[in-house]
Each structure stands twice: as C-alpha cells, then as structure tokens.
C-alpha cells in the first residue's frame, strides 16, 4: 500500500521521526572504500551519487554526481550482523570456592534499530534466517531479541551490480515482504510504501505529498529495467537433485585448486548461519564466558569430531557449501539458500563465481 511521495530535501524528516521513536538509525555510508551500514544521524551522511562497480573478487566505488542516495548495489554487509552477531557472549558461569557453578544468560543490548536502505534480497535472506533461528525446535533468544527491535526501511533496487542475480532466484529487485517501509528512489525524492503497522505509523509522521501517476510509472519502470539489466543467473534446473547427482564431478577438483577455503563467501552470505562456540575463562578461573562466533563450512573445525576431520580438503568443503546452499536448503527450509545477492562472488578474494560453478556442475548457462 502506497502512502505518498517524500521529496529528497525532506529525507531528514524520516530520520528525525525514527530518532523520536527511540531508534538508532543505521544506513549506508562510505567507509574504507565500500558502502557499509553505519550509524546515520543526518541525511547528508548518505552516499549521495556513489556507484559501485563489482566483479568477481573486485569491488570499487566511484562518484557519479547523481543526486540519489541509493544508486548502488549491496556492499559486503547484509542484515545478518544486526540479528546474528559475528561474535557475542551467550552466557557466563561462575564457580565459587566450594565448587558450585552459577549460570547466567548474557542478554544482547536491547537497542531499537532502524535499518535504512535494505534491499529485497536481504529481506528474503532475513526471512530465511528467521526460519532458522526462530522457527525451529527452539527459538534463539539472542537472535529474537535483536530481531524484535528492528524496523526495516527498504529501498527497491534500481542499480544492481554485475554480480547480482536476484531475478533468477525470485528474490528481487522489488521488495515484497517483511519491510516496514519501502522506498522507490526517483530523481527528486521517494515513493513511500508502508508494509506494516509500525511502518504506517511512521509514514503518518512524514509530510508526504500525493504521488503522481507519472512518478509511479517511473518507479515501476526503473525496477523493471533493473531486473532486465541483470545478466548473471543460476541454472534454472532443480539444482538440488542435479548437485547430489554430481558429487564426483571433476569440477569439484577444479574449484578446489582455486578456492582458498577462507570462508569469506559464507561470512558475507546473508543466509549462512553456521557458528562455533568457545569458552573464555578468566586467568583466575573465577568466571568464564561462553561465546558464539561466526563459523564456516570452510574451516577444519566445522567438521571435526574427535580425531577425524570429515572434510579435511577444500574439495569436500566447497562441495558442502554448494550442495547445502543450493541443494539441501530445499530439504531444510523448502527453498534454496541463495537469494541472488552476489556477495559471495564479489567478496571472494579469488573471484570464484557461484553461478559459474553451479552451471559447470549442473549444466545450464550463467549469463542470460
């Protein structure tokens, strides 16, 4: 449901409304040569006119002079670090002199967070993470506490990168679910669309003008063109069966030659959920913290069981990543684990391209 038009000159009113409602705003900002999510207090801090150039293993920013704030495709971060923290303590234990142990949960800081500029692929990924962390046999209280406190301001994607392929996974470029507000960015401002009750309340606080038919058409056209501009895609076959039918394909050896087994792909992937746990006792030994840390199926510890590493080589690790991401996710969550954001392609230090590997193993071209 569309609420109206917000001129770019009044973008600050959106931030102000969120601040008034007690949210810390986090939005796209340029840091260290990339667009990352960071605290946002003023609209001027947004990456006006910034455009990214992405390719396998490569990401560069350039200034185009364009007045828009959101004319870029996703940077390295997704929503994942805001709900599933890269490293956090889960609980602590204390042992007294008589040997009794007391346990206490360490709760994540209860901070209300508004994230601005979220893309469709990341919303789809969030849905998957919600299913994993909140809708299984137990709900993860740390994830849930963060998730509860989120308000999401989406922006329909009009500037996909060369690495993007959300169209082929069906997850973008238009945001269709799980946002509170969604914006369409035009040359002079934003069409504002509410997707939830908090979103409607927020929209009501902005002085929006009525959107014209021409604005609506322009917005729709931009999203359509954005979809058309994507050249990468995953093979359209049912990849689950194709992958598991090709577990001994020679391509696994080929990719293992190139793959560094560094885990960058899993770390930037917005749906990857693997983590390890570690214990951090004080030197005095009077108390100890139990942490969880992002892990990856590319580490040795991931498949280590007392004396045996199930996936000791890169071939089996890469195969685990791909067969899980594009294959066994279907068994677990009824769909593929890939939302087409392209991060694992751009942020792989050696530029390994998931669409290319999938095509080589399962057949089917990667460029449309």
């Amino acid at each position, binding site marked *: 449901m569309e609420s109206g038009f917000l001129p770019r000159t009044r973008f600050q009113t959106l931030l102000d409304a969120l601040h008034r409602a007690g949210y810390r705003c986090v939005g796209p900002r340029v840091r260290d040569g990339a667009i990352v999510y960071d605290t946002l207090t003023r609209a001027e801090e947004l990456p006006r006119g910034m455009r990214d150039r992405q390719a396998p293993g490569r990401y560069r920013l350039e200034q185009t002079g364009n007045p828009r704030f959101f004319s870029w495709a996703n940077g390295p971060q997704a929503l994942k670090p805001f709900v599933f923290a890269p490293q956090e303590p889960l609980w602590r234990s204390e042992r007294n002199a008589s040997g009794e142990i007391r346990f206490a949960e360490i709760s994540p800081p209860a901070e209300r967070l508004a994230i601005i500029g979220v893309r469709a692929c990341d919303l789809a990924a969030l849905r998957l993470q919600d299913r994993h962390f909140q809708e299984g046999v137990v709900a993860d209280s740390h994830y849930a506490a963060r998730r509860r406190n989120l308000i999401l301001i989406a922006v329909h994607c009009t500037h996909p990168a060369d690495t993007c392929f959300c169209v082929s996974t069906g997850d973008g470029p238009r945001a269709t679910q799980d946002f509170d507000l969604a914006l369409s960015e035009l040359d002079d401002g934003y069409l504002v669309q509410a997707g939830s009750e908090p979103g409607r309340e927020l929209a009501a606080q902005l002085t929006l003008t009525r959107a014209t038919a021409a604005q609506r058409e322009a917005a729709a056209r931009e999203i359509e063109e954005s979809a058309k501009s994507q050249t990468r895609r995953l093979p359209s076959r049912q990849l689950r069966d194709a992958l598991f039918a090709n577990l001994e394909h020679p391509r696994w050896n080929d990719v293992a030659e190139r793959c560094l087994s560094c885990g960058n792909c899993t770390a930037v992937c917005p749906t990857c959920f693997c983590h390890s746990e570690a214990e951090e006792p004080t030197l005095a030994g009077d108390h100890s913290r139990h942490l969880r840390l992002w892990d990856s199926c590319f580490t040795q510890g991931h498949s280590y069981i007392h004396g045996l590493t199930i996936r000791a080589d890169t071939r089996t690790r890469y195969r685990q990543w791909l067969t899980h991401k594009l294959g066994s996710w279907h068994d*677990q969550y009824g769909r593929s684990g890939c939302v087409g954001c392209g991060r694992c392609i751009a942020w792989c230090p050696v530029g390994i391209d998931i669409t290319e590997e999938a095509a080589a193993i399962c057949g089917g071209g990667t460029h449309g």
Partner: protein
Amino acid sequence: MADPHVPHEAEVVERIQESPTIFTLRLRFTDPARHAAFRFEPGQFNMLYLYGVGEIPISIVSDPRDEHLFDHTIRVVGRVTKGFTQLKAGDRLGVRGPYGRGWPLRRAKGRDVMVVTGGLGCAPVVSVINYVIRRRDDFRRLVIMQGVKHSDDLIWRSQYSLWSRQRDTQVLVAADAGAALWPWHIGRVTELFDRVLIDAARAVVMMCGPEGMMRVAIDNLLHKGVPEDGIYLSMERSMQCAVGLCGHCQYGGKFACKDGPVFAYPEVKPLFGIRGF
C-alpha cells in the same frame, strides 16, 4: 524466553572407571525440581559442560525409568573429555538436554532386536541392551554383535559374558587380532553375519560405531533380508549447540542433533558412505 543455550548445574554422585580411558559419571541436577522433571529416551544425549573448558554432546546411558540418577559414559579423546576425567563425586558441571531422537524402542517391541557396534564399543547401544534385558518379555530375540580391532579393546568384557547367558540372546564378538584366552571369534566381524539367527524381515537393528563398519554391516544385513527401514544407526557429527542452530552436525539436509542422532537407514542412505558428508 528461556535461553536454550544456558546449562544447568548438576552434581556428580558417583564416578565409575570402566577401563583406563572410559568412565561413567552418574549425575543429578542440583535443583530438585529440575531433576524431578527430567525425562529422556534411550539414545538421546545431553550437552555436558566442563567449567571454563567447554561443552560436548554425550549420550545418556542409564535407564529412563531409573529416576534416581542419569548416567553418562565418556571416553577420553580430547580436551573436554580429558578434563572430565578429573571429576569425582561431589563435583559440579553443567548439563542441558535431553536432545535428539533416540532409539526406536517402541517400534522394536515384540520383534527381534539386533545391536551392532564397532570400534571401542558404543555407550549408546549398551543402554539399549540393558533396556531390552530389563524388559525381556517385551522383545523377542536379542542379538548383540561387536567387532574390535584387538581383543584388548573390548571393554565391558564381563558384561558380554553376562549377556550371552540371557535367554534368547546371541552374543557375537570378533576381534581382528586377539590375545590369549579370548573366548570369541578372531577375524572380521562380517564373518559373523552368517551365524546371526533372526527373523530378518521383522527385525529392528540398531547400530553405532565407525561409519565404514556400519556400511559393511548394512550390506550384510540387507543381504540377509533385513528391510532398509528396519535398520537404525546413530550418526556422530560435530555439535556446538545441539538445538539445530550451529549447523555443524548437518548431514545433507538433516541436522544430526535434532533429526537424529538416531536415523532410520533410508533417511541417510543417499549420502551414507560418501566421504565428506
């Protein structure tokens, strides 16, 4: 919301040394209400936390009806298990659980039960044997099969002798190499399958041990006419959280912690035996 990650304090009531590297901890939650409410099924496991060192999955080996205490039999293999060897009666640790899907004992009722283990012997299936023997009338034949590398590796030797004297019970033990006075078969455990006497079509087989051994056993059992869905196996995978979140125990689309650790063979068949899963 209760945090599913946080352990609860338990106390070691008794410690039994089973062999030089295997010991059993008999535990009780220090909170009486928690202890009273604790229920589990054979084949389920707990996460045991050693203060300041770490948390590991360990099967519960005692009988679910024994409400007095719950037991864990631990083999020393690495840092946490090594640390646990120091615990003695009165010491505290953390426990959370029970987790996972246990053995199909309800399904096995009224049928022949066969238990197959390999390697150094598997605590989880010992609990099944004890379970069946305590409820001997609920089950038909009991076949216990165990293969070890060397006869010295067999622990609970006296128990095997004891079991072999039970009615309707067949104990088949094989060692690849044996020392003097070894009463059982010398050779590969697979050679024993010919001697197994069971109603193959209706039998329920439960196995745990090295996956290579299980692979061979499955082939032999299928050959004998045991249906695929009559075979159950316990899959060991790395586990950090035990509640289906950490992703370490994935086996294809399954999470060993919540969909297993006990699986019916057809559930794992597509990947079983493929190196790397």
